C-alpha cells in the first residue's frame, strides 16, 4: 500500500464521516436533554432536497445550506409539538417523522432527480495541505467539512465546559429536579430538538450540495439511523462520537481500499459493510447492560410534564 492510497483513504474517510458527524452531534445534544428523536433520517432527507432545490434555483449554495437547516428545524418542531407538548411516545413520533420526511422529500424532489449541480469544491489550504498523509485529510476538504470541525468544537465545548451544557444534562438526567431548580425543562428540550433538526438538515445539505451534488430519493441511505447507533457507540461522550463518525466513514469507503489492493468483491456486498459494522458495534457496546445504564441520560425517551 503506497502513501498516496493511504492519503486518499484518510481524505475519503473524513469526507464520508462528515454527514454522520453532523447528524450525530445534533442527536447527541438532543439525547443529552433526554429526548430520543428517531426522525434523523427524515429530517436529513428533507434538508437534502430543500438545500438542493434552493441552491439549484437561486445559484446560491449557502442559501441552500441555510434553508436546509431551517427545513430540518421545521420538521423537528413538528416532533417537538407531538412528542413534547402532546406527550406522545417518542419512539413512535420519531418513526412517524422519518416516514413523513422520506415521503415528503421524495414527493418534492421527484422533478429534481438527476439534475446536475455545481456543488461545494474542495478548498486546499496552502502549505498545510501538503503535509504527508494527513494534509489532504484535514486541509484539502470542502468548506462544509471545515464547518463540521468548528461545529464539533462548539458542541464539545458547550457540553463539557459551559453552563448551557450543564443545564442540558441536568434536564436529561433528572427533569423533576431540574424543574424544581427553576430550569425551563420543556424549553430546553425543545431547543435541543430544534438544534438536532438544524444539524440533520445541514448533514442533508452536505450530501446533496457537496458529497454528491445531486438529488436522489433516499440518498441518505440510512445515515440518520447509523448516527443514532453512533451516539450509543460513543456512550454519549462527544470525543468518542468524533472517533465513531470517522470509523463509520471508513467502513463506507472500504470499497476504495478493496479496489486499491485489487480485491474484486461485488459492490452490493461491500455496500452492506456500514450496516454490518453498526450491528457489530452495537453488540460490542450493549453487551454490558450496566455500561449503557451508566452513560445514557437517565430520562432518555421518557415523556415529562410539569407538575407530575
Amino acid at each position, binding site marked *: 500500500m503506497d502513501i498516496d492510497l493511504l492519503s486518499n483513504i484518510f481524505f475519503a474517510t473524513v469526507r464520508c464521516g462528515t454527514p454522520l458527524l453532523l447528524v450525530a452531534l445534533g442527536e447527541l445534544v438532543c439525547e443529552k436533554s433526554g429526548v430520543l428523536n428517531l426522525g434523523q433520517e*427524515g429530517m436529513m432527507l428533507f434538508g437534502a432536497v430543500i438545500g438542493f432545490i434552493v441552491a439549484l434555483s437561486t445559484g446560491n449554495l449557502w442559501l441552500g445550506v441555510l434553508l436546509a437547516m431551517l427545513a430540518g428545524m421545521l420538521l423537528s418542531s413538528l416532533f417537538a409539538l*407531538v412528542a413534547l407538548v402532546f406527550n406522545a411516545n417518542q419512539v413512535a413520533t420519531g418513526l412517524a417523522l422519518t416516514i413523513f*420526511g422520506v415521503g415528503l422529500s421524495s414527493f418534492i424532489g421527484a422533478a429534481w432527480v438527476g439534475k446536475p449541480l455545481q456543488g461545494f469544491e474542495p478548498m486546499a489550504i496552502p502549505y498545510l495541505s501538503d503535509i504527508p498523509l494527513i494534509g489532504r485529510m484535514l486541509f484539502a476538504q470542502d468548506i462544509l467539512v471545515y464547518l463540521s470541525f468548528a461545529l464539533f468544537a462548539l458542541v464539545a465545548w458547550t457540553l463539557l465546559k459551559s453552563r448551557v451544557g450543564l443545564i442540558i444534562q441536568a434536564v436529561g438526567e433528572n427533569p423533576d429536579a431540574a424543574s424544581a431548580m427553576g430550569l425551563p425543562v420543556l424549553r430546553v428540550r425543545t431547543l435541543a430538538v430544534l438544534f438536532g433538526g438544524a444539524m440533520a438538515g445541514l448533514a442533508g445539505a452536505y450530501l446533496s450540495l457537496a458529497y454528491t451534488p445531486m438529488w436522489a430519493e433516499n440518498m441518505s441511505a440510512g445515515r440518520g439511523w447509523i448516527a443514532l*447507533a453512533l451516539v450509543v457507540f460513543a456512550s454519549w461522550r462527544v470525543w468518542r462520537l468524533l472517533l465513531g463518525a470517522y470509523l463509520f466513514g471508513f467502513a463506507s469507503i472500504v470499497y476504495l481500499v478493496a479496489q486499491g489492493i485489487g480485491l474484486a468483491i*461485488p459492490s452490493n456486498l461491500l455496500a452492506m459493510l456500514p450496516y454490518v459494522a*453498526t450491528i457489530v458495534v*452495537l453488540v460490542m457496546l450493549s453487551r454490558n447492560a450496566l455500561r*449503557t445504564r451508566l452513560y445514557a441520560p437517565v430520562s432518555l425517551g421518557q415523556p415529562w410534564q410539569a407538575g407530575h
Partner: protein
Amino acid sequence: MLLSLEPRGQQSRPMLWFSPVLAAALTLVSGSLLFLLLGLDPLLTLHTLLIAPVSDLYGVSELLVKTLPILLCALGLAVVYQARIWNIGAEGQLLMGALAGSAVAVNIIDMESRWALVLILLTGVLAGAVWAGLTAWLRTHFNANEILTSIMLNYIALNLLLYFVHGPLKDPAGMNFPESAMFGDASRLPLLMEDGRAHAGVYFALLALVAVWVLLQRSFVGFQVKVLGLDKRAAGFVGFREKRLVWLALLISGGLAGLAGVCEVTGPIGQLVPQVSPGYGYAAITVAFLGRLNPIGILFSSLLMALLYLGGESAQMTLNLPQAITQLFQGMMLFFLLACDVLILYRPRLNVRWARRQAAPITGAV
C-alpha cells in the same frame, strides 16, 4: 395559553377509535390543501386517488393484491408492538422471504408437483422468521437495541437481494436484466378469479388474521405479550419469561413478513426482481398503529393503505403526480394519529376568561 390540555384521569374509549378516523380525515384535508397549492382541483384529485382505482372489478382485485403484503406485515407488527418490541424490520424480513423463496423456486422450475409451491412458501416464511430471529438474538443475548438492529438488517437484506438478483440468481437467458427466471407454473399461487391478479395468498392473510386475533385476544401467550408491553417489571415479577416472549413475538412477526414476501414473488410478480416491495414493510408500521394493534382494526387500515398505494399509481399515470404521494400520506397519517391520540388521555379546553373557574386543572392519576 388559549387552549389547554386537561387530564381525563382515564383512557377515553371512544377516543381510542375516533382518533384514527380523525387522523385519516385530517390527512385528507391537508392533502386537499396540498393539491390546491399545486394548482389541482382537490375533489378531482381525491377522486383519482381514492375512488377511481377501485371503481371496477379489476381495481378491487388489485386492491386485494396490495392489501395482502401490508396486512400480513402489519399483523406481525401488532404482535411485537403489543410487547413494546420495536421491530422496524418487516421490510427486510419481507425481502428475505422473497429472496429465499425465489432461490428455491429457480432451482425447481421443472418440478410439476404442487409440493413445489408448499416448499417455496415454507422457505419464505422460515427466511423471514430467521431474519427477525437475528434481531431477537441480538436483543436477548447482547442487549442490542432492536430498533437499530432491525433497521440495519433492512439495509443488509436489500443489498443481499440486489446482489443475488444481479449475480447468482440472474436469469442466464434474460438478456442481462437483473431478474431471475420466471418461476414454473407449479410454483405460482393460483389466481382467485379469471381477470385480475388477486391470488390464493388472500386465504393465508385471512388465516393469519384469525390466528393473530386468537393469539392476542384469547390466548395466554397473547396476555403475556401484552403484560410485557405494559410493564416489563410486572411481567418479570409474575414469572413471564421475557426472552422467550421476545423470541416468540419476533419469530411470528418475521414469519408473517416472510410470507408476505414469498407471496409477492410467487403471486403477482412470478420471478425475483430488484423492486419486490415499494416499502410495504414500512407502510405496515403506520397500518399497525392506525389499526390500534388490533387485528380487525388492522384489516381496515391495511385496506386503506393499499388504496393509497393504488391511488399513488393512478395519480402518477393520470395527473403526473409523483408516486411518493403514497409515502407522504402515510407519514402524515401516522403523525396526525399520534397527535390526535393526545385526546385519549387529555381533554382539550378553551381558556376563555369567563370559564376560568371551571377550567381550573383537575389533577388525576394518569
